[in-house]
């Protein structure tokens, strides 16, 4: 299925290849009518996928996990159940399973099965380990508006953090630029299967995202470099950029309309910054906005209305609980930590019940990491948020809470049609946990990505090791 998807994608890319020359045919007829008719041009179409995914799933055998508690990631929990992974997909669950001739059976007695965890906020690869200036490529801190940069061009696939995250059950993740800029650039969604290039990791058909940032980071970074130096200048900066993007979009639409009408027209000059912003206005690129304070999020939702785009998710949203109803009304997700707070003033009002309160208001709550350590135990982060909510009287089932790690995360990234839940036909991105993943002591025993066994805790010889760690102290150690 994957190969098919991919070939379709590749074909699409070729058919929309950039054709940038406007060709006038040589013509001996001088009449005006004849001249208009004789203009043969090819429409200039921007290739939306110039760095196409070359991801290939790892080889897989049909796998049946039996006798396990299955949390499906969309609110269901079945005890003593089974799931069949075959040809990269979830083929059957529960009683409704037709077994193939050859398959491996794993006894899941006492164990739990969940969808693979999806981290909506990671800087693995762009701020890799080791933390050095040489490889710190996550923030283009040269201008507050840099929508032209793409995180994938900074991702170092040899970051050992990818393997650590895999051992924590992370199967997909969004790599974002940092939050120094009002517009930080494009994000990229990856499969957690590093290979030689970032293209080898790119999640096929995942839409692009754009990182935006509220608050104190842009004003701190640019306060003495020409601004913004205040939150009001932050907002002026977003609005100015959207005005420019709307003009750019209008020019291209005019061009497309004129071309379609057979007029003699010339394509506007490409502008990578506006190309990304236009993608947002066209609804093709999802906005991921770093924003802590409630009041700033409300302002940003007005900016969103003013320029007619959709914010996919506020990230961090430490004060999400203060405006949870407004998040729900505006259909904006919030990607949050369970309990981080106080490291800066805009994070001072963080509370443990944030995630549960956002969920309770009917908004799309996501638990994210923004950390190469936190990404390794996002199940525990969700567990904390779940239990803290219950202690405050917010009664959420574990099955519903797991949505924060997978289904809601996948929705906020635009990949829920492929992953994020255990449903027949979806990608077999699956984790087998040693016990209830809401326990500190639970460990991911087996992690499947597209049905392939990407991590097997019981087989240390098979653990993936990045080039960086090869031959170093601790290569292949219990990490």
């Amino acid at each position, binding site marked *: 299925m994957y190969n098919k998807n991919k070939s379709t994608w590749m074909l699409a890319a070729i058919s929309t290849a950039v054709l940038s020359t406007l060709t006038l045919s040589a013509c001996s007829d001088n009449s005006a009518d004849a001249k208009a008719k004789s203009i043969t041009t090819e429409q200039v179409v921007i290739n939306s996928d110039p760095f196409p995914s070359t991801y290939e799933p790892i080889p897989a055998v049909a796998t049946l996990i039996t006798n396990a508690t299955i949390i499906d990631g969309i609110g269901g929990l079945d005890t003593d159940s089974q799931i069949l992974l075959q040809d990269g997909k979830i083929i059957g669950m529960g009683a409704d399973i037709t077994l193939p001739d050859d398959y491996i059976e794993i006894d899941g007695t006492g164990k739990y099965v969940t969808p693979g965890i999806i981290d909506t906020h990671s800087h693995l690869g762009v701020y890799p*380990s*080791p*933390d*050095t200036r040489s490889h710190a490529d996550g923030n283009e801190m040269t201008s507050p508006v840099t929508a032209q940069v793409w995180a994938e061009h900074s991702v170092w696939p040899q970051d*050992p*953090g990818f393997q*650590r995250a895999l051992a924590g059950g992370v199967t997909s993740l969004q790599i974002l630029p940092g939050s120094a800029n009002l517009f930080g650039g494009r994000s990229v969604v990856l499969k957690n299967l590093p290979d030689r290039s970032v293209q080898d990791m790119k999640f096929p058909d995942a839409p692009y995202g754009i990182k935006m940032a509220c608050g*104190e980071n842009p004003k*701190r970074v640019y306060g003495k470099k020409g601004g913004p130096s205040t939150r009001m200048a932050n907002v002026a900066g977003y609005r100015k950029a959207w005005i420019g993007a709307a003009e750019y979009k209008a020019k291209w639409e005019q061009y497309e309309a004129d071309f379609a009408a057979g007029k003699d027209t010339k394509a506007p000059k490409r502008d990578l910054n506006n190309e990304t912003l236009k993608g947002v206005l066209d609804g093709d690129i999802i906005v991921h906005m770093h924003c802590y304070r409630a009041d700033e999020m409300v302002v940003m939702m007005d900016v969103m209305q003013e320029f007619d785009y959709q914010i996919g998710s506020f990230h961090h949203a430490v004060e999400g*609980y*203060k405006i949870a109803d407004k998040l729900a009304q505006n259909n904006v997700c919030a990607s949050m930590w369970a*309990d*981080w*707070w*106080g*490291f*800066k*003033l805009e994070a*001072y*009002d*963080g*509370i*443990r*019940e944030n995630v549960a*309160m956002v969920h309770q208001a009917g908004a799309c709550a996501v638990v994210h990491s923004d950390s*190469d*350590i936190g990404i*390794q*135990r996002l199940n*525990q982060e969700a*567990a*904390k948020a*779940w*239990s*803290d909510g219950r*202690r*405050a*009287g917010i009664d959420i089932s574990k099955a519903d809470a797991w949505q924060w790690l997978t289904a809601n995360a996948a929705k906020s990234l635009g990949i829920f049609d492929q992953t994020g839940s255990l449903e027949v036909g979806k990608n077999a991105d699956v984790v087998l946990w040693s016990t209830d993943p*809401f*326990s*500190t*002591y*639970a*460990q991911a025993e087996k992690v499947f990505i597209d049905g392939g066994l990407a991590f097997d805790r019981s087989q240390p010889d098979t653990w993936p090791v990045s080039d*960086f*760690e090869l031959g*170093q*102290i*601790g290569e292949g*150690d*219990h*990490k």
Partner: protein
Amino acid sequence: MKRLLTKFTKVGKVSAFGLSISIISISAALSLGISPSASASQFAIVGGKVHTLSAQGTLDEATVLIKDGKVEQIIAGTQSPLGYERIDAAGKVVTPGFIGAYTALGLVEVGFSAGQVDASTTNHPVTTIGAAVDVSYGINADSSLIPITRMEGFTSAVTGIEYSDYLFKGQGAVIQLTDNDPLLKARAFMALSVNNSSASDTGGTRGTLWVALKQALNEAEYAIDADLSPTQPWHGMISRADAKALAHVVQGHKPLLIKADRKADLLHIIALKQTFTNLKIVIISGSDAWRVADELAAAQIPVIVNPEYNLPGAFDTLGATLANAGRLEQAGVKVAIGIETHNIRLATQHAGNAVANGMSYDAALASLTKHVAEIFGMQQQIGSLAPGMRADVVVWSGDPLEVTEAAEHVFIGGEPINMQSRQTLLRDRYLHLKQDKPMVYTRP
């Protein structure tokens, strides 16, 4: 003030913390029709699973008696003597109050771009190497971090400098997480860093750092018997104030905490103890400590670890592994857990993850309590439950190392704390927002 008022209203008793507050609290209590309890300073925590961390070990069902701020005794069973306010702990877990092993609590409110932080130092002529710095002057008991941390079962903490360009990070303190009189022990330890970043700040190379370190310790030994008064000559590299502070360290009066990760650095530290034999060395961080675990055990050097740190964040942490804490324990090294400040409350989770990766449960509990107390010479007061110990006691909803469990009752020095913080007030405001008026009119 609101916090204090509510606190004593709820507890319904006279506080030892001050006359004026006591009067307010009594009147508040009376106005609500609650009479102050006559037995308020005597509590019986009945029927919990009690981890004493002392000679009594773990009792599956026991009663902890608290009297006059101390643990009176721990009795097997569920008896509840008369005259004690009873706290039902059936099905719960009771532990000594946890101790933040290495924090900056009380020294920092918001660390980044938000004003004064007393957990970082800049240069001043009183010190040439940072040893003289004394954080006990910077501790702020009104910090919002104190109630936020203590209501999660942490009753005391080791606190010190987080950021400094100096070789030494100054003298830290042990504090109790109370509203008043937080200081349990001033100048409780000296801190030092010899890792990559410290080498970068100290002459740019370990070749300079270690010579400077040994020079400082040599001068400190010389200073033990020297007259350091201003009228007498002192030509040392370290300042007079540094010399006074370090003299206690080289005599072994207080522990020397050394932040180090790579194996080579750890071996130099072990060798340092052979030169300066009285040093009471404690390793902080110690990513590679498992590689020299036997040597550390033989040298009786404890390690305060972050057991979740498993990445090669720099070239001196290539050996970082989740198995570090468990391997150290296996080798007989005393391990403490808890390097954090705003979220030191998550040290329970850190310890739980250490257990998930090979540490024994008992050692993990000790890493949050007894071992911390022993490292800082506080084991006669805190870190275990035994007759005569300070009554820093926590009743947990279940296993405290499980992320889904929480502290339900917390006693510090025999006083039950109000389970409220700025965070719970924010939560309650927004959980019960009045619809007809702006939120500022909702007071939880």
